[in-house]
């Protein structure tokens, strides 16, 4: 019981937007889709929603394909933000909620709850065009989750928001997840995905280059990062066995090492030579994994 994307390909004429993509999003989990612009994220989402039909392959949600009869189970925040500019917030949410199959009487308390939560209670009777971009985005988020969907698709939910509002939205997303909503979201910011998702997929030119459970990915990656701060000669670590990458930082070095044993060896090696203020062994970041797989820095 999950969202399954099985060997899906989408071609627009000559161009291939999504290329034999296979993904499984377990129910109740948060899934992050990473990729630069044009990597195929939005096309994938549109296919999940049934707005576009895959050229090849199948997409299933709880074993069935998604069509308009299920639209009340699904929430969608498109990347292209847009609402009726002339309509008042309340009217707008009422209309969109009813289009998702809700009853008017059920919508109003839900709207109030969300507006309260996002600190925009006073805007209920303002026209959308009078709101700031950030607040419009909150309204749009509310429109996507108002009907308590089982499957929530968020296309770049945090782009264009200030840090305070990003936190506000993140909290809301995590709450929804705790209530059992399956969430798929895309971002081009690695740290958001790393922070929120149990499962990730990195797309490049329509292909999944990294895909799986985040913890699993990190564990099997093996390599770790070693952060050292202090005074002394770090240069000789460049050729230390097991050091794969060497970066000088303002107060020390940042190393990528093959395994934990290397860290032990380095620790012993520098103990007498350097005044160490910080010695930290870190999990590899998604970024490291990406660089390793693609051979180039992200973005």
């Amino acid at each position, binding site marked *: 019981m999950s969202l399954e994307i099985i060997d899906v390909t989408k071609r*627009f004429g000559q161009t291939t937007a999504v290329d034999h993509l296979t993904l499984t999003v377990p129910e109740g989990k948060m899934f992050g889709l990473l990729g630069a612009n044009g990597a195929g994220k939005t096309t994938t989402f549109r296919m999940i929603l049934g*707005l576009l*039909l*895959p050229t090849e392959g199948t997409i299933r949600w709880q074993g069935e394909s998604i069509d308009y009869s299920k639209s009340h189970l699904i929430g969608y925040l498109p990347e292209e933000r847009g609402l009726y500019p002339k309509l008042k917030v309340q009217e707008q949410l009422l209309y969109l909620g009813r*289009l998702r199959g809700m009853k008017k009487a059920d919508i109003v308390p839900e709207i109030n709850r969300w507006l309260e939560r996002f600190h925009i209670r006073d805007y209920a009777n303002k026209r959308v065009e009078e709101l700031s971009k950030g607040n419009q985005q909150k309204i749009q988020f509310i429109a996507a989750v108002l009907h308590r969907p089982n499957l929530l698709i968020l296309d770049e939910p945090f782009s264009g928001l200030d840090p305070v509002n990003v936190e506000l939205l993140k909290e809301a997303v995590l709450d929804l997840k705790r209530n059992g909503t399956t969430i798929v979201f895309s971002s081009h910011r690695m740290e958001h995905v790393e922070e929120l998702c149990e499962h990730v997929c990195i797309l490049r030119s329509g292909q999944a280059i990294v895909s799986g459970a985040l913890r699993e990915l990190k564990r099997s990656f093996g390599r770790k990062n070693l952060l050292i701060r202090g005074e002394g000669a770090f240069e000789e670590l460049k050729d230390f066995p097991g050091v794969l990458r060497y970066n000088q930082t303002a107060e020390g070095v940042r190393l990528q090492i093959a395994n934990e044993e290397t860290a032990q060896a380095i620790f012993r090696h520098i103990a007498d030579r350097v005044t160490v203020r910080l010695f930290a062994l870190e999990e590899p970041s998604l970024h490291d994994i990406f660089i390793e797989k693609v051979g180039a820095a992200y973005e």
Partner: protein
Amino acid sequence: MNKFWLVLGHTYVTKLKAKAFLITTAITCLLIIGLANIKTIIEFFTSDEQEHVAVIDRTESLYKALEKQVNREEITLTKITDMEDEAKRAVKEGEWDGLLILSMDAEGLPEAAYYANTIADNRTPEELERVLNELKTALSAAKIGLTEEQMAVLYQPVPFQKVALEENAKTEEELNQARSLVYVLLFAMYMFVLMYGGMMATEVATEKSSRVMEILVSSVSPVQHLFGKIIGVALVSLTQFFVFFAVGFTALKMNGQELWRFLGFDNVSMSIWVYALIFFLLGYLLYAVLFAVLGSLVSRVEDVQSAITPAMILVIVAFMIAMSGLNMPESAFIIGASFIPFFTPMLMFLRVGLVSVPMWEVALSFALLLTTIAVLIYIGAKVYRGGVLMYGRMNIFKDMKQAVQLTKK
């Protein structure tokens, strides 16, 4: 189906509540009331404008006859003593509105000269000239020795009757009335399609440009959405038309009896109204689908105008042909064109309104029209589905192709 009604209701209510819509409706209603009362209004402004004209009569005989025959509601004549320069000065100073000098020419027939500060307003001199012409005719006739009976014979127009032999053919009087009614209805149809077709396309383009469309089409199928919009806008326009009609009807009945009778609304058979309604609705549906689809292809409201121009031209051409057909409803060209679906609503209506058309021809044109609407809806739904997801520069035919492609696998 439920969502179709939601879209319909939403479109209807928001359009109806829009300030611009309310203002336009109010202004148009005022115009209609004004038009129905045009005679009263003109009279109101001209009633106190009596022209005071001084007359110097050198013939010593014409003044009495002139005063008797001139329209006394508009012109007051005063006979003055023969002091031309002084009289002209009096006109300049505004004491008189004009000065008329009557004299006899060598043959004993009247001559006249009219002096006024400006001669921009023609009504007074024309009225004087008309009366003088009559007087002159009477004088000449008297000189030759014609009696009044002989004069009457001379001026009687030729009796000229037009009679239609075909059994169902309309009599001349009926035809004239039908013609003016058909004209009014054709014009209404034309205005309706132009106004609300544009509204339709703008509606769709606005939703697209505000990018709310992607949320909409993820919760309601584009086809339901398209029809919700089309019927919604149609209901808005019918509401507006109903208001106009009610206002116009009342105003005409109350004040403009003459105009009412001139338009021949009193004795027109019921079937014309029924045909008008059917062709009206089908015509609207045909063009609304076309306009909605064109609207779905553009991504900015500013581009709507250029996108719908081809469809607009189609409507205008149909109207032009219909206008030329008013006087020749049986020409082969009109008959042929009335089977072209885009022209059928206007031209076939024109034909059934003016001449008797065989039933099979009406049925055939209906069938063609309905088929075209069905095909257009089918293609339209496809283009619409893809079109609403497409943003970017526009090129109608390429975009249509691309939009259809988006709906494919």
